[in-house]
């Protein structure tokens, strides 16, 4: 690990004042310390934001406001989240391990880096880590890569479970800027496609801090999270789906379906939600949804299996959610 200076401010304002080019915020540290050990990331200053009082979960206009340093454990166990946003509790509980969830935070989870093995290996070319060097994953080991939203420069996927559920719940990210001003952005617009700049992952400007994630009042009571992985626990998703549905008079009145393990960002496709909305649930409809979802998929030999796997999982999730 490269040497760095450590600071632990006690107010958000002093944290924002301390951040400068070359510095990084640290929350739980479960991703950043890992990457610093490998020297994939080498900040010269590390600013600890764990004691800024951003760890509250509050009622917010019929929804909830989740502070950026609320741990994944506390969020999953929160009574209101379990009752109104079970898809979020389920997604969190399907991620990482008990120990990691106790440290991992809401903001850190949203900003965790891809698990592309080449990104972690400084001996291989990687456009995300070192822009312009190429992409070792294309033509290399591809099992854990994306099939939707990829570019010829990067095929890395976003590994979060939590963010998939938050996509289905229409989460909004609350951001504090260096001047102390607050702006809000829909999670939908928070992540960027890799295109020809895979190093730019989100709309966060240098020096900006995630203060909270907000969830509006739940729009559906039928919430399901399913995750398929190589072992029963403590593994990233091959494919995961978070669905928030509502039914009225035998028809789907609200559909929000988000996907993990297949997209360069936590994925949601308006065309899938639109296709389902207003319809009577049926196997045919669910199969059609799977076709629409994959219309622009660009799988490789290594990720081809994800197309069918996702479509089967989607059928199972929608069946469960509409029963």
């Amino acid at each position, binding site marked *: *690990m490269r*040497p*760095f*200076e*450590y600071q*632990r401010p006690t107010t958000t304002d002093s944290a924002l004042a301390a951040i400068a080019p070359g510095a990084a915020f*640290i929350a739980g*540290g*479960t991703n950043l*310390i*890992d990457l610093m*050990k490998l020297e994939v990331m080498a900040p010269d200053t*590390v600013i*600890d934001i*764990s004691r800024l009082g951003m760890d509250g979960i509050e009622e917010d206009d019929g929804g909830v406001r989740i502070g950026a340093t609320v741990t994944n*454990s506390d969020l*999953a*166990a929160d009574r209101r989240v*379990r*009752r109104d946003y*079970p898809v979020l*509790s*389920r997604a969190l*509980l*399907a991620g*990482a*391990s*008990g*120990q*990691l969830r*106790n*440290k991992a935070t809401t903001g850190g989870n949203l900003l965790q880096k891809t698990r592309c093995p080449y990104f972690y290996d400084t001996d291989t070319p990687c456009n995300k880590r070192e822009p312009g060097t190429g992409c070792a994953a294309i033509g290399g080991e591809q099992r854990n890569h994306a099939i939707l939203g990829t570019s010829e420069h990067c095929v890395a996927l976003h590994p979060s479970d939590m963010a998939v559920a938050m996509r289905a719940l229409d989460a909004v990210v609350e951001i504090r800027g260096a001047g102390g001003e607050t702006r809000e952005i829909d999670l939908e617009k928070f992540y960027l496609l890799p295109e020809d700049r895979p190093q730019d992952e989100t709309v966060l400007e240098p020096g900006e801090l995630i203060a909270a994630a907000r969830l509006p009042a739940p729009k559906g009571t039928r919430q399901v999270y399913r995750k398929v992985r190589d072992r*029963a*626990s*403590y593994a990233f998703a091959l494919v995961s789906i978070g669905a928030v549905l509502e039914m009225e008079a035998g028809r789907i009145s609200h559909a929000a379906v988000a996907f993990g393990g297949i997209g360069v960002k936590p994925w949601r496709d308006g065309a899938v939600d639109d296709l389902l909305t207003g319809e009577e649930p049926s196997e045919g409809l669910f199969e059609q949804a799977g076709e629409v979802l994959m219309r622009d998929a660009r799988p490789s030999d290594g990720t081809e299996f994800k197309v069918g796997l996702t479509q089967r999982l989607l059928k199972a999730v929608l069946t469960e959610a509409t029963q």
Partner: protein
Amino acid sequence: MKIELTVNGTARALDLDPRVTLLDALREHLKLTGSKKGCDHGQCGACTVIAGGRRINACLSLAVMHDGDEITTVEGLAEATGGTLQQAFVRNDGMQCGYCTPGQLCSATAMLDELREGWPSHVSDDLNGPYELTHEEVSERMSGNLCRCSCYPGINAAITEAGAAK
């Protein structure tokens, strides 16, 4: 940097480079070598300690982030909990080489607390409980602790026994 940790009930002053992980501070600086280093990347659980009442991977935390925190390691666990769990590990053949055992013990102790506080798990049918200490629940809740010797049946039985005894 100067920091103070309360380790197993005793205040310990340390002067550390910020790069030192909590695990290395315990093992190399305080010579508490009970906590083990398996992977050093959060993937095995051998380094599990209890910080502020919660189990964490000491390898993925900087010691300086814990200034003022209370840390319990395997060395202080018996005093803190009475040793029921350790005895259950012996009775149920919960180890072979023993390398993962300190992490298993710290993790299981805090996991049983989480259960008492009513935390759900991935395999809980109802997110609002009640949760039984079934084989499946123990496996899921302990999945962050790997055992190279694959003593999982014994580990699971020991934790179930100790959990029921409380």
